[in-house]
Each structure stands twice: as structure tokens, then as C-alpha cells.
């Protein structure tokens, strides 16, 4: 699954969520006290937020997060649902829908939306504070113009940063972060957040309220008040604290300080070169000539210039549609409004309504804004090259606004949602159909042998061919409906590995193979959680720190490989890491210590058996617990989850070298193509994909060596195993009239093995039903199938048999 596919899925789900959110919002307005409805609404918004988090769509996430916070309060009863709130939420929803549309058409969010998203998010947060307790007052982070010490009013908590430091860092940001008491339960680590503030030069920690008595002290109620000084621009800090904006205060420190002892003469107007001259834009040229102003103004100006240039690039493209030209024109108008440039605005309005791209381009080049808003002379070449391409459709999307969006709505891919029951029923019916059609060849045979109707038999066979083809297509189609590529869940791992490895300070690459291997939807879905757990385990316990790895002679970067492939009727997923592996001694000791196995038994286990102990319920190496994989979800839960879907987990680990976990899962009710063979007057099926060839080997060509029999096929020695012997049948393999044995050559890993049988009986499609109840332990059989004549066929599992 590619990124685009994931994005498509996100868009699909986001739309679905938004549609339901819209309905719920309206219902809630009618019944604002309905707890269930509010819960439902909250859950939807929460889902949407989670989805947004998968991508780097900051403006979207910000809005949805604010909405979630608001709804959380309403749900908890701390706030009353008001019409104003409904307006804000609906507004936010419209904005979100617009963003989603934009993401669909361009794959990205227009940076211009950032400002709108902030205003919508603060409108939502304003709702929070409007009625909520004053404790929760959420001052919007403000960026002010460069200050002098005289104008500067230190916040009440400003004294917590030594003045010498403030003097040493002019024009820096003072921040205060008071995490909410229950923040630990949201998985936040305020200390980590504070320490990682960009450009941190000072950090002061105090309790919000005095520390309570020993006995009443609750270590999980956050009582911290963090104040710090950072040299990074406000925008960076806002970005850093983006998940807790309402808990953070930012204050800009003076750009200039009077010389010590000379408090009343602020150094005139020589603002020091702002540290943040190059924020958020890669356009050095723009900032170097930008007007003196607050960093925010500079930023806006730089953005305007960049957008202006993007429009020029758009206009310069050949064959640009008239609609886009109009969109670009609107964009110019908006940009001029930001720059407050009435003269240019007038000349833009003077252009004819249906202006041509060339005319608009000429105008735009003439009126391009420059540093200080003076009429420009701009080098066209530099313009076009510095702007860089890649933002196709941007202008139309940002300028076209609502009207354009409504028009596109009809083009969305129609998706039909069908309940799983209906699909299951369809699948059962098709399964029956497959079995029923298999009765036709028997009928044809009977017509010929019993009723001596050769013609009729031939016609039945012809009809059978047609029905067979249709049935196969149907089967294929229905399987496709339920099949998903395993990549759908693998896709999440990239982010998981990146985030966790960063957190742990490890360097890990994730290699994914065979992500288009398909399996039933149910199986794929129930696989996500166990796999996330396995990967977390690998990251946390498996992969070592880079220094340790280098000392052990391994590359500093660890590798986690997730490979999926189909093997016969199963999907095999292998998760391999090249980390430390599992120490069998320690596992053994832990299991004995926890009383999971008796001591004498523990000592007799081989190393390979000992590592399997980690699957025991209750097993945990408590001293390695961490916030990543010590949440009480042990490997036994992983195994149970996999076994619930008829899967198996195998583990092999080499201490110091790494660990391999192999999940083997059924493909679901896959239709299997089998070859029917006969041995000792009984019929068996062998899955077709295991069969290499069928040959007849003369008895004289079989070499006996003690018990073993071999033969030579095309210059290679192939071991022969009589099926009769494997199944403990009393009969011996028979030979045909020419003294030849029937041999079915099957693939065993990398080797071929000949299975001696009595006779071949052609191929058949069957629906493999796994063995159940007491029979489930018979690993030699993969399952059973009902044949067209009503008989039951046992399907062999040659791998297990040998």
C-alpha cells in the first residue's frame, strides 16, 4: 500500500466521519443532554483526530483537536452545549471538510490555511473558556513587536529566570507551561516536552501548589509549573507546544536592554538582527530585504512573496484553464489586501473580467510586492526559478474557495457500504455453488456409463465448462471484496518505528516486504494489535542502542524486517530484528522465579524451548518494563490474538543476533485447488501449489538404501516416501501394468520430495474446512472438503506428514 492509497483511505474515512459528525451535531443541538449522543460525537471527532495525526496536516489537526477538547468538556458535563458552540463546531467542521477536499485534490494543505485554522481553533477554545472555570483561561500565544526594556512588563513569573540570562538573550521567548493535573493519564510527559523546547537556555521547575503531605501525595496528579527561556522564535515554540496550547504562556523578552545602571534610556531603534530571520521560509532573498517589523510581519511578508511567485509559475504554464486564472486573480487580490496596497488593488480591478493568463502574468510581474512594499523591478528569471514547482492546482484551490468545492462534490468515488453479514451470506452461497457445479462431471459420467448417452454427457460437460468459469469468477470477485493487502496495517508501522526509535534514541530502519500479499479482512484487522505489540517489543527490548551495536560489531542502525508472503493456504508474516535476541538463561530464570514452570523442568529445557517461555501467561521480565512494551500486554496476548484467528506463532531467537517471529495465518475460506490422489483405495487431496510434477517411476529405477528409497529425476536425486507408510496404511504402493509407481513430486522448502501413491485422479476446486474439535490435533491433514458426489475428501498437509 502506497502513501497515496493510505491517503485515499484517510480521505474516505474522514468524509465518513465528517458526515456523521455533521448529523450528530445537529441532533445534539436538539437534545443537548443526551449523553450517549455526545459520547458518540466525541468518539467520531476523536477518531478523526487520530486519523489526522497519521499525516502531517497541522492545520487540520489543530482544529480537530480543539473541537475534541471542547466536546470532551461537554461530554463530561463541565460545559453546557450552547448554540454559539454549535456554530463554532459546525464552522470547524466545514473547514475540515474543505481541507479534506483540498488534500484530495492536491495531496497537501495550502499553507495559507494555517492562519484560518488557528483562528477557528481559537474560536473553539474561546468556547472552552467562555463558560469554563477561570482556571482554564487559555491566553492565546501572542507575538508582539520587538520591545525595549522600558516597555517590557515582565510576567509575574518572569523573575524565575535570572535577569542576567534575560539580558544575555535579547528578543528571546519566555515561556511558562503548567500542565493540567491529569496530563499523565493522557500519556504526556511535561518534563520531556519542557526539556526538548527548541533553543532552551534556562528551565525552572516548581510545584504549582505546595507539595502535599507524604501520605496524601498523588504522584500521578501533575503538580508541576515549568518556566523557561528559549532563543527560538515564537512560532517554533507554538509548534512545539501545539498539543497543549491552552497550558502554555509565551512572552517575548525585550530586544534591547539598557546598560546596567542606566535603566531609563532604551537604546534608540536599532533592533538587533532577529535570531529568527529565516523562519518557515527557505527564501533567504525575501527575508534579507524584508521590511523591519515584528517577526510575524516579516513572516507574513515572506509568505506573501512566496505565494505571489507560485502564482506566477502557475500563470506561466501553457494551457492554464480560465477558471484557474480567475482563481489566481482572486489570490492576488487577497495578497494585496494583506499588504494593504490599494493602488495595485485598483489596477487589478481595472483588468477585464475575463482576463487572459498572459495579461494577468504581465500585470503580476509589474505589481509584484517587494521589500517595503515599493513598486518593484523584479528579475523574471529569478522569480520563476526560486519559487519551485510542485504545488499544482494550489491557486485554484485557495482562491476558488467554497464555490469551487461544492462543484467537485459530485466527482467523489461512490462507495457502497455493505454489512459483513451480507458478504458472508454471499460467500456461503457461492461456496455451495462451487460444490454443486462439481457434481456435473459425475452426472456426465453417469449419463455415459449408466444411460449410455454419450451425446448428452458431452453436452453436460460443455455446460459444465461454462458454469465452472462463471463460478470461478464469482468466487474470485467475492474473495476480492473481502481481501485486503496486509500493507494496510503495515503502513502504520513506519510512523510507529520512527516515533519510538526517536524516543528511545535508537536508530532503526523498517523494511517491509510483500505488503501486497492479500488476506481476508477479518484476519488483517485482528492482526494489527498483536503486530504493533511485537514491533514495540522488538524496538524496546530487541534493538540495542547504537553504541552497543557498534561494540558488538553490528551496524549502528538496527533493522526490523516485516515480510509477508503466501504459502499454500496460509499467509506467513515474519518479523525479524537484528537486535540482542532473547537470553534463554534469563527467561528460564524468570519463569522459574515467577513459578510458571518447576525448577527441574526449567533446567532441562533446551535454549530454543526456553525462549518459548515468553509466551506463557504472566510472563514478564519486570526489570525491563518501560512505557512502550510494559503495559501488561504480554506475548501470551499476542499468541492468543493470533490463535483466535486460527493462526500460529513461532519464535526463534539467537542470543546476540536477533529474533524472528513467524505468524502463520489462514487465508480464510479460500478456495483451494487440489490434486486428488489415491493410496490404499482411499482418496486424498494435495494442495496444488505444493506440487512440482507428477511422474511415473519404474520400480527398477528406485534405489534402496536401508529403509530409504531414492530415484534420479533429471539428474537430481529425489528421496521417495510412500504415502502408505506416512499414513500407516496396511497396503503397499502398487505398480501399474508397466511396472511403474505413481510419484507426486512436492516441494519441501528448497527440496523436492517424491510422494509414492497408487494413482492420480485429476484436479478439483474445493473449499477447505479446517479440522475441528478432537481432529484439530491431526497436523498431517490440512482439512476436509465436500466433493460433488457427496463424499468427504481429506486434504493432506505433506509438510507436516514428513
Amino acid at each position, binding site marked *: 500500500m502506497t502513501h497515496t492509497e493510505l491517503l485515499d483511505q484517510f480521505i474516505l474515512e474522514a468524509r465518513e466521519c465528517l458526515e456523521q459528525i455533521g448529523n450528530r451535531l445537529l441532533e445534539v443541538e436538539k437534545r443537548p443532554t443526551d449523553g450517549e449522543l455526545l459520547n458518540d460525537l466525541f468518539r467520531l471527532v476523536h477518531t478523526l483526530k487520530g486519523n489526522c495525526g497519521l499525516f502531517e496536516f497541522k492545520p487540520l489537526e489543530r482544529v480537530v483537536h480543539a473541537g475534541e477538547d471542547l466536546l470532551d468538556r461537554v461530554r463530561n458535563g463541565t460545559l453546557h452545549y450552547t448554540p454559539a458552540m454549535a456554530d463554532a463546531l459546525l464552522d470547524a467542521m466545514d473547514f475540515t471538510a474543505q481541507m479534506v477536499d483540498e488534500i484530495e485534490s492536491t495531496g497537501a494543505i495550502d499553507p495559507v490555511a494555517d492562519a484560518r485554522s488557528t483562528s477557528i481553533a481559537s474560536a473553539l477554545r474561546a468556547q472552552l473558556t467562555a463558560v469554563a472555570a477561570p482556571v482554564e483561561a487559555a491566553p492565546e500565544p501572542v507575538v508582539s513587536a520587538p520591545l525595549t526594556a522600558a516597555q517590557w512588563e515582565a510576567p509575574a513569573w518572569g523573575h*524565575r529566570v535570572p535577569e542576567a540570562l534575560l539580558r544575555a538573550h535579547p528578543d528571546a521567548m519566555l515561556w511558562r507551561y503548567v*500542565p493540567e493535573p491529569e496530563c*499523565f493519564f493522557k500519556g*504526556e*510527559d*511535561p*518534563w*520531556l516536552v519542557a*526539556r526538548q523546547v527548541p533553543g*532552551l537556555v534556562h*528551565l*525552572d*521547575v*516548581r*510545584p504549582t501548589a505546595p*507539595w*502535599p503531605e*507524604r501520605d496524601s*501525595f498523588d*504522584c*500521578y496528579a*501533575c*503538580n*508541576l509549573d515549568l518556566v523557561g527561556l528559549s532563543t527560538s522564535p515564537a512560532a517554533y515554540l507554538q509548534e512545539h507546544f501545539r498539543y497543549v496550547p491552552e497550558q502554555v504562556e509565551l512572552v517575548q523578552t525585550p530586544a534591547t536592554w539598557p546598560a546596567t545602571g542606566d535603566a531609563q534610556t532604551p537604546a534608540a531603534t536599532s533592533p538587533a538582527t532577529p535570531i529568527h530571520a529565516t523562519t518557515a521560509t527557505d527564501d533567504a532573498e525575501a527575508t534579507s530585504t524584508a521590511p523591519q517589523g515584528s517577526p510575524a510581519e516579516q513572516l507574513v511578508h515572506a509568505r506573501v512573496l512566496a505565494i505571489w511567485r507560485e502564482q506566477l509559475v502557475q500563470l506561466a504554464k501553457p494551457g492554464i484553464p480560465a477558471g484557474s486564472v480567475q482563481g489566481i486573480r482572486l489570490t492576488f487580490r487577497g495578497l494585496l489586501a494583506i499588504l494593504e496596497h490599494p493602488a495595485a488593488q485598483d489596477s487589478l480591478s481595472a483588468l477585464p473580467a475575463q482576463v487572459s493568463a498572459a495579461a494577468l502574468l504581465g500585470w503580476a510581474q509589474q505589481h509584484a510586492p517587494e521589500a517595503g512594499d515599493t513598486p518593484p523591478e523584479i528579475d523574471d528569471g529569478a522569480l520563476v526559478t526560486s519559487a519551485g514547482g510542485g504545488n499544482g492546482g494550489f491557486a485554484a484551490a485557495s482562491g476558488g474557495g467554497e464555490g469551487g468545492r461544492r462543484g467537485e462534490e459530485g466527482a467523489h468515488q461512490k462507495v457502497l457500504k455493505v454489512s459483513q453479514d451480507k458478504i458472508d451470506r454471499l460467500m456461503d452461497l457461492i461456496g455451495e455453488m462451487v460444490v454443486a457445479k462439481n457434481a456435473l462431471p459425475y452426472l456426465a459420467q453417469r449419463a455415459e456409463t449408466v444411460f449410455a448417452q454419450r451425446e448428452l454427457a458431452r453436452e453436460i460437460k460443455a455446460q459444465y465448462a461454462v458454469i465452472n468459469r462463471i463460478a470461478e469468477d464469482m468466487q474470485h470477485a467475492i474473495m476480492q471484496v473481502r481481501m485486503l493487502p496486509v500493507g494496510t496495517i503495515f503502513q502504520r508501522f513506519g510512523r510507529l518505528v520512527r516515533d519510538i526509535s526517536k524516543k*528511545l*534514541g535508537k536508530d532503526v530502519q523498517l523494511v517491509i516486504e510483500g505488503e501486497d500479499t492479500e488476506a481476508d479482512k477479518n484476519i488483517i484487522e485482528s492482526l494489527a494489535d498483536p503486530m504493533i505489540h511485537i514491533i514495540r517489543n522488538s524496538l524496546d527490548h530487541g534493538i540495542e542502542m547504537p553504541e552497543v551495536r557498534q561494540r558488538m560489531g553490528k551496524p549502528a542502525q538496527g533493522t526490523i524486517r516485516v515480510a509477508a508472503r503466501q504459502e499454500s493456504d496460509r499467509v506467513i508474516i515474519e518479523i525479524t530484528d537484528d537486535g540482542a535476541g532473547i537470553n534463554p538463561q534469563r527467561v528460564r530464570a524468570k519463569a522459574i522465579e515467577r513459578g510458571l514452570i518447576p525448577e527441574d523442568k526449567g533446567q532441562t529445557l533446551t535454549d530454543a524451548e526456553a525462549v518459548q517461555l515468553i509466551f506463557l501467561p504472566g510472563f514478564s521480565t519486570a*526489570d*525491563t*518494563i*518501560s*512505557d512502550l512494551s*510494559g503495559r501488561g500486554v504480554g506475548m501470551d496476548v499476542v499468541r492468543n490474538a493470533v490463535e483466535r484467528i486460527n493462526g500460529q506463532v513461532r519464535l526463534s531467537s539467537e542470543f546476540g543476533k536477533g529474533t524472528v517471529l513467524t505468524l502463520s495465518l489462514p487465508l480464510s475460506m479460500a478456495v483451494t485447488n487440489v490434486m486428488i490422489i489415491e493410496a490404499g483405495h482411499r482418496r486424498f487431496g494435495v494442495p496444488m501449489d505444493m506440487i512440482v510434477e507428477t511422474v511415473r517411476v519404474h520400480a527398477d529405477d528406485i534405489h534402496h538404501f536401508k529403509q530409504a528409497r531414492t530415484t534420479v529425476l533429471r539428474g537430481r536425486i529425489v528421496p521417495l516416501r510412500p504415502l502408505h507408510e506416512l499414513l500407516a496404511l496396511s497396503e503397499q504402493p502398487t505398480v501399474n501394468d508397466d511396472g511403474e509407481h505413481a510419484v507426486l513430486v512436492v516441494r519441501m522448502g528448497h527440496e523436492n520430495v517424491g510422494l509414492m501413491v497408487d494413482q492420480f485422479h485429476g484436479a478439483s476446486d474445493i473449499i477447505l474446512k479446517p479440522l475441528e474439535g478432537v481432529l484439530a490435533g491431526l497436523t498431517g491433514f490440512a482439512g476436509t472438503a465436500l466433493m460433488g458426489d457427496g463424499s468427504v475428501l481429506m486434504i493432506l498437509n505433506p509438510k507436516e506428514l514428513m
Partner: protein
Amino acid sequence: MAIRYLKKHAALEDIVTVEDAEALQKWLNEQAKPAVNLSKCRHMHAAVLQVLLALKPALVGEVSDPWLHAALCSPQA
């Protein structure tokens, strides 16, 4: 390796997570002369930090992390 509870002090090592806070608090409360060694601690969760700030155990050895040092050794804390 998060916390090793030794005879005279608790050694906080590497990354100390939120789950360890409660156990550490309990252990410190039980000690006559609580002490912790933070010399091998690379990061501790805020919950653990506030346990240390609230219960003020004696520090054994250096605090290697500068921010942690500032937080725990400053007079106001």
C-alpha cells in the same frame, strides 16, 4: 533497566518511565533515610521527577543530566 532498589539508595538508570513513579514513591516513603542515585539516568518521566521534588531524597553521586541537575539542585526546588 529503570530503577534498581539497593540497600541504601535507589539507582535510577537510563529511562525511568511513568509506571515507576508510584513504586519509587512507595519505596522512598518506607526508607528511613531515602536516597537516590541519578548518575546513570538519561531521562525520567515528569511523574517521577515530581516524586523526587516532593519527597526530596538525598542525592548519591552526580546528576549527569544538566536540566535535571538544575531542577533538583536549585534552592527553590
